[in-house]
């Protein structure tokens, strides 16, 4: 046993030597880089163990999660988030039973009305207005609803851009080009500051929905462009054969164009979704108390003044965690959706 051990150590040693210390220049370079890395780690460790005080995070955990949602009702957003997490895990590891796998999509769709019901209340739950939403709940809500609304809008825009009717084609390309030429922050300012001025007195759209509206307007242009790439990569012969089979326009779009375009565009759509999740933090400077906004409000509490680093490190790790979950889910979806050999054999 000892022998095997020393052998493996030996090979490891040789590998390291070959990789890092093969000649003088390499050796010097490796040593310098190792020194820098260890210094960085040492300093981070020193700060973590000596200078940081995590009370600002631990005492405010409910605030980060739910904002100023009434304390006795906080189980509602908590239930929603646990549902989302549970279904994510189920999607990744679970589906051994077929019925479960078939119903997963349905479960994902149900989380949306469920989330709205739990947050807004009514029908037996005490109603809570959207202005009391905050923290991670609000961030997730902004992301999910903006993504959900901008996907169909993006599909429609992409199809319109391919349309043979000049008016529709032109107007959708102008919309896409204009939206892509405006920075997101100005679209958000438009949503928060100008829309209420344009609306007549008495009609008031909620700030949360105004933000979702602005995100949707912006994101759908990008999604449309991603999908256009997918649409263009579908050979024309497929449309011709569909025509000769007697499918009408709507059927061609529904069964041939959109599914393939979505599959091809999936990696870039994932990118958009992750970008969207991080961009929701822009709402902090527009007065919504989402995750970053809550962090900034907590920093104004005299008890926690000056603990910027702890709060921002904590927020960064939360953002990182959610983004990682999203990325892993998307990769899983990609793998499920690729046309592999078994699929061809079935054909």
């Amino acid at each position: 046993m000892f022998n095997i051990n020393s052998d493996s150590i030996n090979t490891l040693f040789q590998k390291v030597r070959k990789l890092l210390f093969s000649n003088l220049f390499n050796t010097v370079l490796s040593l310098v880089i190792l020194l820098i890395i260890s210094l960085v780690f040492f300093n981070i460790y020193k700060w973590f163990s000596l200078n940081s005080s995590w009370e600002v995070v631990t005492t405010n955990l409910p605030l980060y999660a739910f904002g100023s949602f009434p304390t006795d009702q906080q189980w509602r957003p908590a239930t929603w988030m646990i549902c989302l997490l549970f279904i994510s895990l189920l999607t990744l590891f679970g589906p051994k039973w077929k019925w479960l796998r078939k119903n997963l999509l349905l479960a994902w769709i149900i989380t949306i009305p469920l989330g709205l019901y739990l947050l807004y209340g009514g029908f037996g739950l005490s109603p809570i207005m959207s202005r009391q939403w905050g923290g991670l709940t609000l961030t997730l809500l902004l992301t999910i609803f903006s993504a959900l609304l901008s996907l169909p809008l993006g599909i429609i825009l992409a199809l319109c851009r391919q349309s043979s009717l000049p008016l529709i084609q032109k107007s959708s390309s102008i919309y896409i080009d204009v939206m892509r030429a405006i920075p997101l922050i100005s679209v958000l300012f438009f949503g928060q500051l100008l829309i209420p001025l344009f609306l007549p007195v008495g009609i008031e759209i909620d700030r949360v929905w105004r933000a979702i509206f602005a995100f949707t307007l912006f994101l759908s242009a990008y999604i449309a462009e991603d999908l256009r790439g997918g649409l263009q990569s579908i050979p024309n012969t497929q449309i011709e054969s569909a025509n000769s089979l007697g499918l009408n326009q709507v059927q061609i779009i529904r069964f041939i164009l959109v599914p393939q375009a979505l599959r091809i565009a999936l990696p870039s759509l994932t990118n958009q979704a992750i970008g969207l999740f991080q961009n929701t933090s822009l709402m902090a400077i527009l007065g919504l108390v989402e995750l970053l906004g809550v962090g900034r409000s907590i920093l104004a509490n005299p008890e926690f003044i000056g603990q910027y680093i702890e709060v921002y490190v904590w927020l960064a790790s939360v953002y990182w965690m959610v983004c990682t979950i999203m990325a892993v889910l998307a990769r899983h979806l990609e793998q499920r959706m690729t046309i592999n050999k078994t699929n061809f054999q079935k054909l």
Partner: protein
Amino acid sequence: MKIMRRFVSGIVGLTMLLTGCATTNQANNSRLDLIKKRNELICGVSGKIPGFSFLESDGSYKGLDVDICKAFAAAFIGDAKKIQFRPLTAAERFTAIKTGEIDLLSRNTTFTLSRDSSEGNGLSFAPVVFHDGQGLMVKQESGLNNLEDLANKSICVGSGTTTEQNINDAFESASLPYTPIKYQDLNQVVAGYLQGRCSAMTSDRSQLAAARSGFKDPLDHIILDDVLSKEPLAPASDGQDQKLGDAMRWVIFALISAEEQGITKSNIYEKVQLAKNNPELKPLRRFLGIDGGLGEKIGLSNDFVVKVISSTGNYGEIYERNLGKNSEVPIPRGLNELYTKGGIHISPPFN
């Protein structure tokens, strides 16, 4: 594409429907009636200013601006808890009033002519609740006590701000020489001051106090009594709504007047008894709403003062709670004292 045509006509139809709804206009009532009917006050705050409005760990808002909101809610509705706080950024705050998203603003807003005028932001300001102004902070051990002591010393200041201009004006008018050390923003100014690059730093006094409470040894630093500029911070509402403006004005005056008369949260009911039993205490009876019916003249209940003081205390109590000596952001009262004690807070008579 038939589906597209259907979609477009659907959109057109929806737009027409929405504009149709839009013509139903709201009745031209005062906002005050709306607040009472809604049984809730919507108050715009900042949510990010230490001592004025910030989020507590339990999710509630606290601070001087927040307490002023509570006083309004107590006066208008009779319950200081029936209140909704809407955190607003500096850019949004005036739009939020104009569009009716909030009832009133209690958000560190400086009272200026252009904000008050109908040509400008068209607001109506209640009396000033906090007289801020540019101040100077020095280290205790330096032994510097006033502006004259700072002659020939260096001062850390944010560049390109009115702050920079004000400190320059102050030293020029006193014909004293000094060396400004300029930084991009407040955090850098603080860092420069702590590193000892300058003998003093300058900013708004409330900001100095907030910065100081984040220092390791806050007591080693003092804010000088010299005030270099005027930043009167006041609650505001829509300028077209005189009824709401009047009500707000007199709630603030009630807070100040109560402090002047020594009426506090703890003795308010004793004072009410006293006034009831002694018909000769006419000013007190009018103030507490036993005689005169003053409250009804501004659209409130006659005993609105009792409701306000019993829920938030008088102005001095509010100040002590949020910015006083024992609070976490101590700011000396200075100009914010009553006129009888060397400050400038004064209330017109309740007649």
